[in-house]
């Protein structure tokens, strides 16, 4: 029989959903700037691609040949088809007649020939069957299908399904009239039943004379009584399809009943030229006749699914989906700091919902639907009105996340069928990605990867249960399909996908950063500041500073004032700070900043220098209220209003901080859940201290800055912008106390060769680099002496405050407006979360120099922060990730190698113990195993139902040189196994197998 002709592959509907989900994940990742989401999306895309390739490979080269189909069948009853299917991968096959499914099964890869049981749906003559082959990829994510047609060698006549209700049957005898007995229409005489003694009433013709003569008594032959009635079933010709179908089904039912009564049945049907009547002996003959009758074709049945999609009898998929939802909810709840209501809903509701969905998996329960609807209403009300009576102190409020979690958990209760479970899995993906946008800590990566593994497992389990529902082929030569190698192959595919996706990430540039639309902000607890516009310390730290040995009274006792922990977290975060103090190093994480590129996170600026202390300006600025504030005018704003790029930063605070709002220069928009004092000196202060858990977003505008651009702006009194340098507003930033002469002289000497400001700054930096050393152990200047003077000429050792102060003082001495700024350096980049991790040690003070076109430009000789214009190339995601993964791998190897060694040793010990136990139980076990190994290595198939002599014969056929040894070995093994117990038998067997091994 010619193989079927199949059209090329095309994707199925499920593919579109998967693509949509992956694209959505990528979009969310791009908009939130979280690298983890990129990684998860890339992994998913890689796995889907691998699944696609496998699926195409499976379906593209599949071949199906229909070897045998029943000639006659009854609609709705099992019919057996013999098929031969060959495909390199596992595929699911469906045979369809028109729209009604006939048979469906799945099979693992390979060549299979066997019998499948299906059923036809409607009466008629079937000549063509549609074939649909689906490549079953490991996760069922992107099955490709091919459709084709197969012609049946002989058309199958499908009779109607017998109708259960009775139909009036015309008795043939009724036509004869009432006075004749129905028996006159009897068929052939009954069969001989036997011989018995004569009794009254038997006709003489029944006597069997030979037996009677032999035995001396009258013996008669007894016949079975003739069959009673002959029934005729007549189907009338009609043109109405519905009536014809009903009549045919009634006829089939009547024939069924009549046959069971063991009578003769004659079926009379209309044929194209007249009528045809025949005696039918069984249902199949009746079905053939009815199928061939000249009746209008049966109405096409709409394809009800042949196999229900309920996930019956398997709890694995449901449990895995529930686990995926739990992980997604947990990831969000960690970011929200475990709000009590939602945590309770998840902990109690999710197991309950899973149990309910398992309990009602077969049919829908109206009660469950009602309760789910009510619960969703309650959740929506809570979201809409914002009432939360059970909010605890310290939790982060995000009503949208809580609503999402509640809806997903409630939906799980109503997840009966497989597609509901897939939808629930998709919604858990939404939860995980939302959590990814909320969280910035590195722990999220673990959650995301765990979710990915669990979701993949759930998808695979759902897919396998779908395949199991389809049924399998009854093979001609039953050999259990080997499942074990597929696991290894799947693992290899998974590892390859991971490698490919990490490699692909090398092409993806670092995302631009959080999109303003998604900017989250929350301030968990408000503590209003006592004096408007002032700096306020967070409430907890005051007491801590007192208990911590940083006692204010100690400060007077200790002339160095070294090691004082400022209540503001850093000495420079006060309204004024003394350059001779230094803070205690504090390595704990202060905040995480999600930004695409590094920059100084500036908090304060200082204007006045009195020889020892820097003081900030008095003007508190104006209070701007609202959540989303536009920041308009600062002192020293650049003359260039347009241009530059938008630089979005989101700050996630992890300790209690004062009410400073950190921002990169120059901030244009602030999204903060509090009112803000916008100070003209460029600092921002909130009207509440910002506790642990606060989040806010700043949008800054960065102008492109390079050495050439800065140099082109000249200097006060020099260059094109000379007049701009004389701006009276900038005079404040030239304020200096009475400077020692040598200091001013030195400043002039250093900057003389450079006419432009940028050159001057670089010159001072170079001088500092050559002449002073960075040292945390700086000597304290004596009272009365200018701190910078002491540092430059006597101490020559200092830390960031001294160096910054020196730079600013020298610049002011030559007429360049400059000031000191305090804040945080960018910190360490965490490539996975896409954040800069800022620690207490990163608190810093640096110099800011004013330029007419570029505004305030930060300079810091100690920290290596590149100029804004030099960060055009942002680098790719993959580079740092690969490096981080590499370091992780090295880290893992350190404990992986001993773990592997321990595992191997344990496995070796267990194997030895098992071997010993089996040898004690049956001494010839090892010899038997060796025999089978030798046979397999020689290319001989060894099935579990092959006894040793059969294997030996195959081996003899394959290797004639070893024929005798093989037969001897088989005989010895059988003797050792089944003979009378002889201790030497096992040794004989071993010797025989050893001889065989030598021959091979």
């Amino acid at each position: 029989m010619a193989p079927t002709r199949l059209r090329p592959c095309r994707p199925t509907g499920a593919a579109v959903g998967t693509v949509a989900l992956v694209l959505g994940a990528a979009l969310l990742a791009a908009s939130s700037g979280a690298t983890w989401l990129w990684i998860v999306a890339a992994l998913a895309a890689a796995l889907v691609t691998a699944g696609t390739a496998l699926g195409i490979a499976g379906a593209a080269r599949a071949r199906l040949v229909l070897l045998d189909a029943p000639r006659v069948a009854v609609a709705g009853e099992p019919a057996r088809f013999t098929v031969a299917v060959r495909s390199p991968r596992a595929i699911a096959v469906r045979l369809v007649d028109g729209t009604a499914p006939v048979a469906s099964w799945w099979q693992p890869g390979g060549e299979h020939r066997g019998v499948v049981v299906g059923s036809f749906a409607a009466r008629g003559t079937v000549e063509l069957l549609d074939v649909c082959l689906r490549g079953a990829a490991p996760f069922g994510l992107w099955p490709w299908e091919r459709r084709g047609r197969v012609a049946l060698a002989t058309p199958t006549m499908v009779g109607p399904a017998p109708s259960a209700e009775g139909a009036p049957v015309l008795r043939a005898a009724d036509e004869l009239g009432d006075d004749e007995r129905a028996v006159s229409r009897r068929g052939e005489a009954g069969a001989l039943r036997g011989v018995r003694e004569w009794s009254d009433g038997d006709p003489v013709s029944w006597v069997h004379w030979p037996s009677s003569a032999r035995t001396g008594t009258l013996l008669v032959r007894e016949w079975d009584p003739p069959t009673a009635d002959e029934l005729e079933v007549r189907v009338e010709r009609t043109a109405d399809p519905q009536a014809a179908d009903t009549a045919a089904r009634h006829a089939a039912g009547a024939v069924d009943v009549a046959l069971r009564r063991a009578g003769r049945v004659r079926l009379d049907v209309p044929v194209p030229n007249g009528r045809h009547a025949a005696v039918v002996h069984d249902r199949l003959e009746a079905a053939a006749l009815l199928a061939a009758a000249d009746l209008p074709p049966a109405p096409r049945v709409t394809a009800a699914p042949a196999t229900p999609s309920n996930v019956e009898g398997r709890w694995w998929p449901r449990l895995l989906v529930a686990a995926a939802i739990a992980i997604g909810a947990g990831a969000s709840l960690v970011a929200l700091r475990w709000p009590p209501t939602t945590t309770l809903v998840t902990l109690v509701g999710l197991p309950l919902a899973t149990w309910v969905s398992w309990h009602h998996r077969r049919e829908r329960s109206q009660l469950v639907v009602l309760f789910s609807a009510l619960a969703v209403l309650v959740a929506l009300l809570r979201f809409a009105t914002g009432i939360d009576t059970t909010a605890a102190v310290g939790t982060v409020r995000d009503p949208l996340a809580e609503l999402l979690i509640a809806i997903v958990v409630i939906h799980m209760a109503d997840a009966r069928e497989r597609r509901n479970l897939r939808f629930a899995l998709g919604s858990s993906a939404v939860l995980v990605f939302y959590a990814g946008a909320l969280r910035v800590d590195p722990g999220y990566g673990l959650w995301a990867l765990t979710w990915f593994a669990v979701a993949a497992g759930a998808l695979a389990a759902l897919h396998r249960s779908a395949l199991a529902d389809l049924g399998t082929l009854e093979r001609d030569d039953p050999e259990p399909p080997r499942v074990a190698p597929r696991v290894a192959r799947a693992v290899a595919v998974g590892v390859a996908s991971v490698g490919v996706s990490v490699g692909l990430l090398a092409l993806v540039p670092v995302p631009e950063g959080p999109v303003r639309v998604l900017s989250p902000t929350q301030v968990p607890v408000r503590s209003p500041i006592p004096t408007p516009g002032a700096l306020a310390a967070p409430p907890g730290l005051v007491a801590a500073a007192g208990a911590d040995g940083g006692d204010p009274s100690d400060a007077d006792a200790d002339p160095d004032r070294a090691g004082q922990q400022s209540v503001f977290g850093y000495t420079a975060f006060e309204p004024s700070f003394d350059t001779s103090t230094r803070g205690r190093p504090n390595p704990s994480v202060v905040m995480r900043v999600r930004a695409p590129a590094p920059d100084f996170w500036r908090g304060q600026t200082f204007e006045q220098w009195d020889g020892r202390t820097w003081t900030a300006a008095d003007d508190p600025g104006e209070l701007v209220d609202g959540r989303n504030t536009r920041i308009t005018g600062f002192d020293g704003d650049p003359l260039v209003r347009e241009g530059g790029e938008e630089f979005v930063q989101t700050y996630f605070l992890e300790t209690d901080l004062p009410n400073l709002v950190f921002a990169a220069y120059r901030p244009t928009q602030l999204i903060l859940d509090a009112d803000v004092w916008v100070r003209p000196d460029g600092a921002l202060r909130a009207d509440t201290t910002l506790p642990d858990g606060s989040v806010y977003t700043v949008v800054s505008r960065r102008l492109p800055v390079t050495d050439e651009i800065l140099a082109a702006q000249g200097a006060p009194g020099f260059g094109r912008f000379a007049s701009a340098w004389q701006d009276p507003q900038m005079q404040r930033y030239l304020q200096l106390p009475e400077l020692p002469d040598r200091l001013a002289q030195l400043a002039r000497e250093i900057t003389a060769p450079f006419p432009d400001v940028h050159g001057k700054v670089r010159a001072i930096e170079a001088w500092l680099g050559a002449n002073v050393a960075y040292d945390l152990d700086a000597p304290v200047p004596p009272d009365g002496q200018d701190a910078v003077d002491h540092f430059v000429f006597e101490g020559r050792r200092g830390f960031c405050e001294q160096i910054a102060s020196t730079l600013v003082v020298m610049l002011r001495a030559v007429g360049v407006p400059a000031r000191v700024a305090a804040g945080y350096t960018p910190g360490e980049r965490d490539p996975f979360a896409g954040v800069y991790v800022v620690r207490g040690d990163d608190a810093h003070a640096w110099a800011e120099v004013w330029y007419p076109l570029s505004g305030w430009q930060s300079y810091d000789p100690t920290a290596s922060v590149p100029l804004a214009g030099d960060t055009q190339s942002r680098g790719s995601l993959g580079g740092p990730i690969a490096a981080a993964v590499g370091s992780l791998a090295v880290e893992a190897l350190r404990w992986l190698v001993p773990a592997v060694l321990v595992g191997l040793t344990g496995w070796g010990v267990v194997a030895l113990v098992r071997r010993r136990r089996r040898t004690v139980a049956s001494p010839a076990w090892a010899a038997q195993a060796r025999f089978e190994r030798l046979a397999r290595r020689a290319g001989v198939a060894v099935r579990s139902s092959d006894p040793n002599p059969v294997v030996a014969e195959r081996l003899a056929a394959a290797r004639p040189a070893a024929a005798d040894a093989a037969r001897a070995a088989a005989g010895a093994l059988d003797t050792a196994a089944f003979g009378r117990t002889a201790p030497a038998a096992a040794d004989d067997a071993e010797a025989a197998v050893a001889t065989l091994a030598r021959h091979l």
Partner: protein
Amino acid sequence: MERVLTSFAPPSATARADDARMAVTAAGALGRALTEAVAGTIVGKAEAISQAVACVLSGGHLLVEDVPGVGKTLLAQTLAAAMGGSFGRVQGTPDLLPGDVVGAVVPDEGEGWHLRFREGPVFANVVLFDEINRTSPRTQAALLEVAEERTVSVDGQTHPLPVPFVLLATQNPVEIAGTFPLGEGTIDRFAYALSLGRADAAAERAVLLGDGGRDRLVSVAPVAEPPALAAAQEAVRLVHVADVLADYVVRLLDATRTHPRVRLGVSTRGGIALVRLAQASAAMAGRDHVTPADVQALAVGALAHRIVLADARGLVPARDLVREVVAAVPVPRP
């Protein structure tokens, strides 16, 4: 018809294993001799002949089913001739009566009105029942007691059959018209159902040229006396059957009972028959223990005719099913 008594004392406890081995070896030699004797007449069917001889050695009854003209009756006749002892023959016709087979109570010749039991043709060492499925079920039922208990009960008296007693029956396949299929109870009493099949070309040519065939029948001489045959049948039961092997047979039987296409699986009688057949086959191969290969070689013939399928009739589909089952059930490994 005299009854042949056999006295076969089991070997003494001390030398039990050795005696058993010797007895088994003797039984095996007898079997091989029988096979050789029959092979001269039935050309080219060595496998079938040795299976038939194994059936006889195991003490079971043999059913030979095949299309007409392949030598079923000839095989049975040759086997009977080689086995020696008395021979009885019944030809199955539709009007055959049970009394014609087992015997009847007839008036005694001589004076007085006495009744005596006149033995039927089954009272012989080897009984050939030709075309058993052409007689009525009533006559077939008369064989139930004959085959199982080797006695005949007529008119309140039980008469034992001679020892050894072997029933060889032949039949045409049930699809052929004009037959009365054997009932499940009757056919279950046959230990082995053999199907000869058409000979290959070389064998058929040899038969056509006169080498083998019915002409050779007259030259077949008995290989042993009935007491030796009886002793061999007893000795076959001494072949060692390992526990794991009995488990294997039970699993085979179970698989036939639980198969979805089967309406009636194999009974315990079938299992017993299979084990005895395997013992006989092992003895003929010169071994004193049964191996799974013996069981597998005889499984189809021993089990197929006892199985009633739900959706098909006849031996051929049943044989396919037994082959499938044998290929599916794993063999015991040491």
